[in-house]
Protein backbone atom coordinates (compact mmCIF):
# COMPACT_ATOMS: atom_id res chain seq x y z
CA UNK A 1 0.00 0.00 0.00
CA UNK A 2 1.43 3.33 -0.96
CA UNK A 3 1.18 6.37 1.26
CA UNK A 4 0.38 9.34 -0.95
CA UNK A 5 1.13 11.93 1.71
CA UNK A 6 4.71 10.81 1.97
CA UNK A 7 5.39 9.67 -1.58
CA UNK A 8 9.06 9.61 -2.31
CA UNK A 9 9.07 11.72 -5.43
CA UNK A 10 7.79 14.84 -3.66
CA UNK A 11 10.69 16.81 -5.04
CA UNK A 12 9.23 16.49 -8.53
CA UNK A 13 5.56 17.11 -7.80
CA UNK A 14 5.54 19.55 -4.85
CA UNK A 15 6.87 23.06 -4.77
CA UNK A 16 7.42 25.33 -1.79
CA UNK A 17 7.11 29.07 -1.62
CA UNK A 18 7.47 31.78 1.00
CA UNK A 19 3.94 32.99 1.79
CA UNK A 20 4.42 35.81 4.23
CA UNK A 21 6.90 37.39 6.64
CA UNK A 22 5.37 38.27 10.00
CA UNK A 23 7.02 40.86 12.18
CA UNK A 24 6.01 39.66 15.63
CA UNK A 25 7.61 37.82 18.51
CA UNK A 26 7.24 34.07 18.56
CA UNK A 27 5.06 32.76 21.33
CA UNK A 28 8.03 31.46 23.28
CA UNK A 29 10.27 34.50 23.11
CA UNK A 30 11.09 36.09 26.48
CA UNK A 31 8.11 34.67 28.33
CA UNK A 32 6.90 31.18 29.11
CA UNK A 33 3.53 30.14 27.79
CA UNK A 34 0.59 31.31 29.90
CA UNK A 35 2.64 33.08 32.55
CA UNK A 36 3.80 29.89 34.22
CA UNK A 37 6.67 29.06 36.54
CA UNK A 38 8.56 25.88 37.38
CA UNK A 39 6.72 23.84 39.97
CA UNK A 40 10.06 22.48 41.20
CA UNK A 41 11.34 24.03 43.38
CA UNK A 42 8.85 26.93 43.68
CA UNK A 43 5.69 24.94 44.41
CA UNK A 44 7.67 22.38 46.39
CA UNK A 45 9.01 25.11 48.70
CA UNK A 46 5.53 26.63 49.07
CA UNK A 47 4.14 23.24 50.02
CA UNK A 48 6.95 22.67 52.48
CA UNK A 49 6.28 26.07 54.06
CA UNK A 50 2.57 25.31 54.29
CA UNK A 51 3.40 21.99 55.98
CA UNK A 52 5.57 23.80 58.52
CA UNK A 53 2.90 26.44 59.19
CA UNK A 54 0.19 23.80 59.74
CA UNK A 55 2.43 21.80 62.09
CA UNK A 56 3.48 24.89 64.06
CA UNK A 57 -0.16 25.99 64.49
CA UNK A 58 -1.28 22.50 65.55
CA UNK A 59 1.68 22.24 67.92
CA UNK A 60 0.88 25.63 69.49
CA UNK A 61 -2.76 24.64 69.98
CA UNK A 62 -1.76 21.25 71.41
CA UNK A 63 0.74 22.75 73.85
CA UNK A 64 -1.83 25.29 75.04
CA UNK A 65 -5.08 23.33 75.27
CA UNK A 66 -5.55 19.74 76.40
CA UNK A 67 -8.00 17.41 74.65
CA UNK A 68 -11.05 16.87 76.87
CA UNK A 69 -11.45 13.68 78.84
CA UNK A 70 -14.38 13.10 81.18
CA UNK A 71 -15.11 10.21 83.54
CA UNK A 72 -15.20 6.66 82.18
CA UNK A 73 -18.27 5.87 80.05
CA UNK A 74 -21.29 4.99 82.15
CA UNK A 75 -24.43 3.83 80.31
CA UNK A 76 -26.52 4.46 83.44
CA UNK A 77 -25.73 8.17 83.85
CA UNK A 78 -26.84 10.40 80.99
CA UNK A 79 -24.86 13.60 80.54
CA UNK A 80 -26.92 16.80 80.32
CA UNK A 81 -26.90 17.91 77.58
CA UNK A 82 -25.89 14.84 75.57
CA UNK A 83 -24.43 16.18 72.35
CA UNK A 84 -23.10 14.60 69.16
CA UNK A 85 -19.65 15.72 67.86
CA UNK A 86 -19.80 19.39 66.79
CA UNK A 87 -20.01 18.72 63.04
CA UNK A 88 -23.22 16.70 63.61
CA UNK A 89 -24.75 19.33 65.93
CA UNK A 90 -26.57 20.79 62.91
CA UNK A 91 -28.42 17.49 62.58
CA UNK A 92 -29.18 17.33 66.29
CA UNK A 93 -30.48 20.91 66.17
CA UNK A 94 -32.72 19.96 63.22
CA UNK A 95 -34.28 17.24 65.39
CA UNK A 96 -35.67 19.98 67.64
CA UNK A 97 -37.74 21.41 64.80
CA UNK A 98 -39.74 18.52 63.37
CA UNK A 99 -40.08 14.79 62.88
CA UNK A 100 -36.67 13.03 62.90
CA UNK A 101 -37.24 11.25 59.58
CA UNK A 102 -37.87 14.61 57.89
CA UNK A 103 -35.27 16.70 59.73
CA UNK A 104 -32.37 14.31 60.26
CA UNK A 105 -32.76 11.95 57.30
CA UNK A 106 -34.76 13.37 54.37
CA UNK A 107 -33.45 16.95 54.44
CA UNK A 108 -29.75 16.09 54.94
CA UNK A 109 -30.07 13.39 52.26
CA UNK A 110 -31.58 15.91 49.82
CA UNK A 111 -28.80 18.33 50.68
CA UNK A 112 -26.04 15.78 50.02
CA UNK A 113 -27.75 14.75 46.76
CA UNK A 114 -27.91 18.40 45.67
CA UNK A 115 -24.22 18.93 46.50
CA UNK A 116 -23.25 15.84 44.49
CA UNK A 117 -25.46 16.97 41.60
CA UNK A 118 -24.09 20.55 41.45
CA UNK A 119 -21.73 20.00 38.46
CA UNK A 120 -24.51 18.27 36.55
CA UNK A 121 -27.06 21.01 37.27
CA UNK A 122 -24.61 23.71 36.19
CA UNK A 123 -22.47 22.36 33.39
CA UNK A 124 -21.55 25.62 31.71
CA UNK A 125 -17.82 26.14 31.40
CA UNK A 126 -17.97 29.92 31.62
CA UNK A 127 -16.56 31.56 34.72
CA UNK A 128 -14.67 28.54 35.93
CA UNK A 129 -11.77 29.49 38.19
CA UNK A 130 -13.15 32.92 39.12
CA UNK A 131 -14.52 33.64 42.60
CA UNK A 132 -18.35 33.90 42.35
CA UNK A 133 -17.95 33.87 38.52
CA UNK A 134 -19.17 37.47 38.01
CA UNK A 135 -20.02 40.72 39.79
CA UNK A 136 -23.67 39.68 39.71
CA UNK A 137 -22.74 36.27 41.14
CA UNK A 138 -20.93 38.01 43.98
CA UNK A 139 -23.98 40.19 44.75
CA UNK A 140 -26.32 37.20 44.61
CA UNK A 141 -24.11 35.30 47.07
CA UNK A 142 -23.84 38.30 49.39
CA UNK A 143 -27.58 39.04 49.52
CA UNK A 144 -28.53 35.37 49.83
CA UNK A 145 -26.00 35.00 52.64
CA UNK A 146 -27.37 38.02 54.53
CA UNK A 147 -30.97 36.80 54.04
CA UNK A 148 -30.11 33.37 55.45
CA UNK A 149 -28.11 34.89 58.32
CA UNK A 150 -31.21 36.79 59.40
CA UNK A 151 -33.99 34.29 58.69
CA UNK A 152 -32.47 31.04 59.95
CA UNK A 153 -31.48 32.19 63.48
CA UNK A 154 -34.98 33.74 63.75
CA UNK A 155 -36.51 30.43 62.72
CA UNK A 156 -34.45 28.51 65.30
CA UNK A 157 -35.32 31.02 68.02
CA UNK A 158 -39.03 31.42 67.26
CA UNK A 159 -39.67 27.73 66.68
CA UNK A 160 -38.12 27.03 70.10
CA UNK A 161 -39.78 29.80 72.14
CA UNK A 162 -43.21 29.69 70.48
CA UNK A 163 -43.58 26.00 69.77
CA UNK A 164 -46.76 26.12 67.71
CA UNK A 165 -46.26 22.46 66.99
CA UNK A 166 -46.50 21.64 70.71
CA UNK A 167 -49.47 23.92 71.40
CA UNK A 168 -51.53 22.41 68.58
CA UNK A 169 -50.70 18.85 69.58
CA UNK A 170 -53.90 16.78 69.67
CA UNK A 171 -55.85 19.25 67.57
CA UNK A 172 -54.15 18.29 64.30
CA UNK A 173 -52.71 14.92 63.28
CA UNK A 174 -49.07 14.44 64.29
CA UNK A 175 -48.03 13.90 60.69
CA UNK A 176 -49.31 17.36 59.72
CA UNK A 177 -47.71 19.06 62.75
CA UNK A 178 -44.32 17.35 62.72
CA UNK A 179 -43.75 16.64 59.03
CA UNK A 180 -45.99 18.65 56.67
CA UNK A 181 -45.84 21.91 58.64
CA UNK A 182 -42.00 22.05 59.13
CA UNK A 183 -41.41 20.84 55.58
CA UNK A 184 -43.59 23.63 54.17
CA UNK A 185 -41.90 26.20 56.40
CA UNK A 186 -38.43 25.08 55.34
CA UNK A 187 -39.58 24.95 51.73
CA UNK A 188 -40.73 28.59 51.91
CA UNK A 189 -37.53 29.79 53.64
CA UNK A 190 -35.27 28.05 51.10
CA UNK A 191 -37.61 28.70 48.16
CA UNK A 192 -38.00 32.45 48.65
CA UNK A 193 -34.54 33.53 47.43
CA UNK A 194 -34.81 31.01 44.58
CA UNK A 195 -38.09 32.64 43.55
CA UNK A 196 -36.50 36.10 43.61
CA UNK A 197 -33.55 34.83 41.56
CA UNK A 198 -35.92 33.13 39.14
CA UNK A 199 -37.46 36.50 38.24
CA UNK A 200 -33.97 37.84 37.41
CA UNK A 201 -33.58 35.14 34.73
CA UNK A 202 -30.56 33.47 36.30
CA UNK A 203 -27.92 31.38 34.58
CA UNK A 204 -27.65 27.85 35.93
CA UNK A 205 -24.54 28.99 37.82
CA UNK A 206 -26.44 31.79 39.56
CA UNK A 207 -29.27 29.42 40.46
CA UNK A 208 -26.80 26.96 42.00
CA UNK A 209 -24.97 29.82 43.80
CA UNK A 210 -28.24 30.86 45.46
CA UNK A 211 -29.29 27.40 46.58
CA UNK A 212 -25.81 26.41 47.80
CA UNK A 213 -25.44 29.65 49.78
CA UNK A 214 -28.83 29.18 51.49
CA UNK A 215 -28.02 25.58 52.38
CA UNK A 216 -24.41 26.18 53.47
CA UNK A 217 -25.18 29.22 55.64
CA UNK A 218 -28.16 27.35 57.14
CA UNK A 219 -25.95 24.37 57.94
CA UNK A 220 -23.44 26.68 59.66
CA UNK A 221 -26.21 28.38 61.68
CA UNK A 222 -27.81 25.09 62.77
CA UNK A 223 -24.38 23.71 63.71
CA UNK A 224 -23.52 26.82 65.75
CA UNK A 225 -26.99 26.89 67.35
CA UNK A 226 -26.67 23.26 68.43
CA UNK A 227 -23.03 23.42 69.42
CA UNK A 228 -22.76 26.84 71.11
CA UNK A 229 -26.28 27.89 72.10
CA UNK A 230 -27.79 24.69 73.51
CA UNK A 231 -27.25 24.07 77.21
CA UNK A 232 -28.68 21.73 79.85
CA UNK A 233 -32.05 20.28 78.81
CA UNK A 234 -31.07 21.26 75.27
CA UNK A 235 -32.53 24.71 75.96
CA UNK A 236 -31.31 27.86 74.20
CA UNK A 237 -28.83 29.97 76.21
CA UNK A 238 -26.12 32.49 75.44
CA UNK A 239 -22.83 30.54 75.20
CA UNK A 240 -21.23 32.74 77.91
CA UNK A 241 -24.25 32.46 80.19
CA UNK A 242 -24.81 28.71 80.54
CA UNK A 243 -26.37 27.47 83.80
CA UNK A 244 -24.27 25.33 86.10
CA UNK A 245 -20.70 24.56 85.15
CA UNK A 246 -21.57 23.57 81.62
CA UNK A 247 -19.45 25.05 78.82
CA UNK A 248 -20.15 24.07 75.20
CA UNK A 249 -16.41 24.18 74.46
CA UNK A 250 -15.86 21.18 76.75
CA UNK A 251 -17.64 19.07 74.12
CA UNK A 252 -14.84 19.40 71.58
Amino acid at each position, binding site marked *: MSNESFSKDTSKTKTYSLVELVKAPTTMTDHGPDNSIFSFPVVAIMELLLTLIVIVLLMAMSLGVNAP*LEEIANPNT*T*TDPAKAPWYFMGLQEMLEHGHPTLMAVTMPALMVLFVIAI*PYLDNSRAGSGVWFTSKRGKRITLYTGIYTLIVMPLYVYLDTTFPARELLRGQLPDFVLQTVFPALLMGVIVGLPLLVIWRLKPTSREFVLTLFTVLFVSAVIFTLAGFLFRGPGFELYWPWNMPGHYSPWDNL
Partner: protein
Amino acid sequence: MQRIKDFIVNSRVWRSFFRHGWPDNPLDRSLVMTSNIFFHLHSVKVSRKSLRATYSFGLGIMSAIVFGVLSITGILLMFYYTPTVERAYSYIITLQTLVPFGQLLRNLHRWGAHLMVIVVVFHMVRVFYTGAYKPPREFNWVVGVVLLLLTLGASFTGYLLPWDQLAYWAITVGTSVAAYEPMMGSVIKATLLGGPEVGQEALTRFYALHIMVIPAGIALLTSLHMWRVRKDGGLAAQDAPDAEIVEE
Protein backbone atom coordinates in the same frame (compact mmCIF):
# COMPACT_ATOMS: atom_id res chain seq x y z
CA MET B 1 36.72 12.27 45.66
CA GLN B 2 35.59 12.61 42.06
CA ARG B 3 36.31 8.91 41.46
CA ILE B 4 34.37 7.85 44.55
CA LYS B 5 31.40 9.95 43.44
CA ASP B 6 31.58 8.51 39.91
CA PHE B 7 31.77 5.00 41.33
CA ILE B 8 28.70 5.51 43.50
CA VAL B 9 26.66 7.34 40.88
CA ASN B 10 27.44 4.77 38.19
CA SER B 11 26.92 1.75 40.45
CA ARG B 12 24.02 -0.60 39.71
CA VAL B 13 22.51 0.08 43.13
CA TRP B 14 22.43 3.87 42.61
CA ARG B 15 21.13 3.42 39.08
CA SER B 16 18.33 1.21 40.34
CA PHE B 17 17.22 4.09 42.59
CA PHE B 18 17.71 6.93 40.14
CA ARG B 19 17.24 6.32 36.44
CA HIS B 20 19.76 9.00 35.50
CA GLY B 21 23.40 9.98 36.05
CA TRP B 22 24.87 13.03 37.77
CA PRO B 23 23.21 16.16 36.33
CA ASP B 24 26.34 17.62 34.72
CA ASN B 25 25.09 17.31 31.13
CA PRO B 26 21.87 18.40 29.38
CA LEU B 27 20.40 14.90 29.12
CA ASP B 28 20.81 14.03 32.80
CA ARG B 29 19.64 17.50 33.82
CA SER B 30 16.38 17.02 31.95
CA LEU B 31 16.06 13.48 33.31
CA VAL B 32 16.37 14.84 36.85
CA MET B 33 13.18 16.71 36.10
CA THR B 34 11.21 14.27 33.97
CA SER B 35 11.88 11.20 36.11
CA ASN B 36 11.21 12.99 39.39
CA ILE B 37 8.27 11.63 41.42
CA PHE B 38 7.34 15.19 42.39
CA PHE B 39 6.15 15.63 38.81
CA HIS B 40 3.74 12.80 39.34
CA LEU B 41 1.85 15.28 41.49
CA HIS B 42 2.51 18.54 39.65
CA SER B 43 3.15 19.43 36.05
CA VAL B 44 6.68 20.74 35.35
CA LYS B 45 5.36 24.26 34.95
CA VAL B 46 2.29 25.68 36.66
CA SER B 47 0.28 28.80 35.99
CA ARG B 48 0.96 31.73 38.30
CA LYS B 49 -2.79 32.23 38.53
CA SER B 50 -3.29 28.91 40.29
CA LEU B 51 -0.62 29.79 42.86
CA ARG B 52 -2.24 32.96 44.15
CA ALA B 53 -2.89 32.46 47.88
CA THR B 54 -6.26 34.22 47.67
CA TYR B 55 -7.44 31.87 44.97
CA SER B 56 -7.14 28.48 46.66
CA PHE B 57 -5.86 29.37 50.17
CA GLY B 58 -3.91 26.10 49.89
CA LEU B 59 -6.87 24.29 51.47
CA GLY B 60 -6.64 21.09 49.41
CA ILE B 61 -2.97 20.61 50.19
CA MET B 62 -3.61 21.55 53.82
CA SER B 63 -6.16 18.75 54.19
CA ALA B 64 -3.58 16.30 52.83
CA ILE B 65 -0.97 17.68 55.27
CA VAL B 66 -3.32 17.35 58.26
CA PHE B 67 -4.23 13.83 57.12
CA GLY B 68 -0.49 13.06 57.19
CA VAL B 69 -0.12 14.45 60.71
CA LEU B 70 -3.18 12.42 61.81
CA SER B 71 -1.76 9.23 60.28
CA ILE B 72 1.56 9.60 62.10
CA THR B 73 0.08 10.60 65.48
CA GLY B 74 -2.61 7.93 65.01
CA ILE B 75 -0.06 5.16 64.54
CA LEU B 76 1.81 6.33 67.66
CA LEU B 77 -1.46 6.38 69.62
CA MET B 78 -2.14 2.79 68.54
CA PHE B 79 1.02 1.74 70.40
CA TYR B 80 -0.64 2.78 73.65
CA TYR B 81 -4.25 1.75 73.11
CA THR B 82 -6.48 -1.32 73.24
CA PRO B 83 -10.12 -1.13 72.11
CA THR B 84 -11.74 -2.93 75.01
CA VAL B 85 -14.45 -1.52 77.26
CA GLU B 86 -12.46 -2.53 80.37
CA ARG B 87 -9.11 -1.05 79.37
CA ALA B 88 -9.56 1.68 76.74
CA TYR B 89 -10.16 4.48 79.27
CA SER B 90 -7.30 3.49 81.57
CA TYR B 91 -4.96 3.39 78.55
CA ILE B 92 -5.89 7.00 77.78
CA ILE B 93 -5.17 7.96 81.42
CA THR B 94 -1.82 6.14 81.23
CA LEU B 95 -1.02 7.83 77.93
CA GLN B 96 -1.73 11.27 79.38
CA THR B 97 0.08 10.82 82.68
CA LEU B 98 2.89 8.28 82.23
CA VAL B 99 3.88 8.20 78.55
CA PRO B 100 6.43 10.92 77.63
CA PHE B 101 4.68 13.51 75.41
CA GLY B 102 1.56 11.30 75.57
CA GLN B 103 -0.78 14.18 76.33
CA LEU B 104 0.78 16.25 73.53
CA LEU B 105 0.37 13.32 71.15
CA ARG B 106 -3.31 12.98 71.99
CA ASN B 107 -3.84 16.76 71.73
CA LEU B 108 -2.22 16.81 68.28
CA HIS B 109 -4.50 14.00 67.09
CA ARG B 110 -7.64 15.54 68.60
CA TRP B 111 -7.13 19.11 67.36
CA GLY B 112 -5.80 17.80 64.06
CA ALA B 113 -9.03 15.85 63.56
CA HIS B 114 -11.17 18.95 64.16
CA LEU B 115 -8.89 20.99 61.88
CA MET B 116 -9.20 18.42 59.10
CA VAL B 117 -13.02 18.58 59.15
CA ILE B 118 -12.89 22.40 59.02
CA VAL B 119 -10.24 22.50 56.27
CA VAL B 120 -12.03 19.91 54.10
CA VAL B 121 -15.35 21.80 54.40
CA PHE B 122 -13.64 25.09 53.52
CA HIS B 123 -11.92 23.38 50.58
CA MET B 124 -15.31 22.30 49.25
CA VAL B 125 -16.73 25.79 49.75
CA ARG B 126 -13.73 27.31 47.93
CA VAL B 127 -14.10 24.89 45.01
CA PHE B 128 -17.81 25.67 44.80
CA TYR B 129 -17.54 29.47 44.85
CA THR B 130 -14.68 29.51 42.31
CA GLY B 131 -16.78 27.30 40.00
CA ALA B 132 -13.95 24.77 39.89
CA TYR B 133 -16.45 21.89 39.68
CA LYS B 134 -17.45 22.84 36.13
CA PRO B 135 -16.61 20.54 33.21
CA PRO B 136 -14.28 18.72 32.85
CA ARG B 137 -13.97 18.53 36.64
CA GLU B 138 -17.47 17.20 37.50
CA PHE B 139 -16.33 13.75 38.53
CA ASN B 140 -13.54 15.07 40.75
CA TRP B 141 -16.15 17.14 42.60
CA VAL B 142 -18.11 13.95 43.30
CA VAL B 143 -14.92 12.24 44.54
CA GLY B 144 -14.36 15.27 46.77
CA VAL B 145 -17.86 15.03 48.28
CA VAL B 146 -17.23 11.35 49.09
CA LEU B 147 -13.90 12.36 50.68
CA LEU B 148 -15.74 14.92 52.83
CA LEU B 149 -18.18 12.23 54.02
CA LEU B 150 -15.25 9.86 54.74
CA THR B 151 -13.55 12.63 56.76
CA LEU B 152 -16.69 13.02 58.88
CA GLY B 153 -16.80 9.22 59.27
CA ALA B 154 -13.16 9.08 60.35
CA SER B 155 -13.71 11.78 62.95
CA PHE B 156 -16.97 10.27 64.21
CA THR B 157 -15.54 6.75 64.64
CA GLY B 158 -12.49 8.15 66.43
CA TYR B 159 -14.70 10.09 68.82
CA LEU B 160 -15.79 6.89 70.62
CA LEU B 161 -12.32 5.46 71.26
CA PRO B 162 -11.39 7.29 74.54
CA TRP B 163 -14.49 5.62 76.05
CA ASP B 164 -15.34 8.48 78.39
CA GLN B 165 -18.79 9.98 79.04
CA LEU B 166 -18.30 12.52 76.25
CA ALA B 167 -17.49 9.79 73.71
CA TYR B 168 -20.19 7.39 74.88
CA TRP B 169 -23.11 9.84 74.79
CA ALA B 170 -22.00 11.58 71.62
CA ILE B 171 -21.97 8.27 69.75
CA THR B 172 -25.25 7.21 71.40
CA VAL B 173 -26.88 10.43 70.20
CA GLY B 174 -25.19 10.28 66.79
CA THR B 175 -26.17 6.71 66.01
CA SER B 176 -29.74 7.13 67.28
CA VAL B 177 -30.27 9.57 64.40
CA ALA B 178 -29.44 6.78 61.93
CA ALA B 179 -32.33 4.71 63.33
CA TYR B 180 -34.85 7.25 61.99
CA GLU B 181 -34.03 6.30 58.41
CA PRO B 182 -37.42 4.85 57.40
CA MET B 183 -36.45 1.62 55.63
CA MET B 184 -32.94 0.61 56.64
CA GLY B 185 -32.64 2.66 59.85
CA SER B 186 -32.56 -0.13 62.40
CA VAL B 187 -30.31 -2.22 60.14
CA ILE B 188 -27.79 0.63 59.73
CA LYS B 189 -27.73 1.26 63.47
CA ALA B 190 -27.34 -2.45 64.28
CA THR B 191 -24.55 -2.77 61.70
CA LEU B 192 -22.67 0.20 63.13
CA LEU B 193 -23.07 -0.75 66.77
CA GLY B 194 -23.11 -4.56 66.48
CA GLY B 195 -25.85 -4.59 69.13
CA PRO B 196 -28.78 -2.65 70.57
CA GLU B 197 -26.60 -0.04 72.29
CA VAL B 198 -23.04 1.31 72.37
CA GLY B 199 -20.86 -1.40 73.92
CA GLN B 200 -17.85 -3.60 73.27
CA GLU B 201 -19.09 -4.60 69.78
CA ALA B 202 -19.48 -0.94 68.82
CA LEU B 203 -16.00 -0.12 70.13
CA THR B 204 -14.47 -2.99 68.12
CA ARG B 205 -16.23 -1.92 64.93
CA PHE B 206 -15.51 1.77 65.36
CA TYR B 207 -11.83 0.96 66.00
CA ALA B 208 -11.56 -1.18 62.83
CA LEU B 209 -13.31 1.49 60.78
CA HIS B 210 -11.22 4.26 62.31
CA ILE B 211 -7.73 2.81 61.93
CA MET B 212 -8.16 0.71 58.78
CA VAL B 213 -11.23 1.00 56.57
CA ILE B 214 -11.79 4.75 56.45
CA PRO B 215 -8.11 5.86 56.29
CA ALA B 216 -7.52 3.35 53.47
CA GLY B 217 -10.54 4.76 51.65
CA ILE B 218 -9.32 8.32 52.17
CA ALA B 219 -5.79 7.45 50.96
CA LEU B 220 -7.08 5.70 47.83
CA LEU B 221 -9.61 8.38 46.94
CA THR B 222 -7.11 11.17 47.67
CA SER B 223 -4.74 9.58 45.14
CA LEU B 224 -7.57 9.48 42.60
CA HIS B 225 -8.55 13.05 43.52
CA MET B 226 -5.02 14.45 42.99
CA TRP B 227 -4.47 12.46 39.80
CA ARG B 228 -7.73 13.80 38.41
CA VAL B 229 -6.71 17.37 39.27
CA ARG B 230 -3.78 16.96 36.84
CA LYS B 231 -5.73 14.98 34.25
CA ASP B 232 -8.51 17.58 34.24
CA GLY B 233 -5.99 20.31 33.48
CA GLY B 234 -4.74 21.55 36.84
CA LEU B 235 -6.48 24.12 39.01
CA ALA B 236 -9.42 25.86 37.38
CA ALA B 237 -7.74 29.23 38.04
CA GLN B 238 -5.66 28.89 34.90
CA ASP B 239 -8.80 28.72 32.75
CA ALA B 240 -9.82 32.13 34.06
CA PRO B 241 -9.28 35.15 31.79
CA ASP B 242 -6.19 37.21 32.57
CA ALA B 243 -8.31 40.31 33.24
CA GLU B 244 -9.26 38.88 36.60
CA ILE B 245 -5.64 39.05 37.66
CA VAL B 246 -5.12 42.61 36.43
CA GLU B 247 -8.14 43.73 38.41
CA GLU B 248 -6.31 43.28 41.71
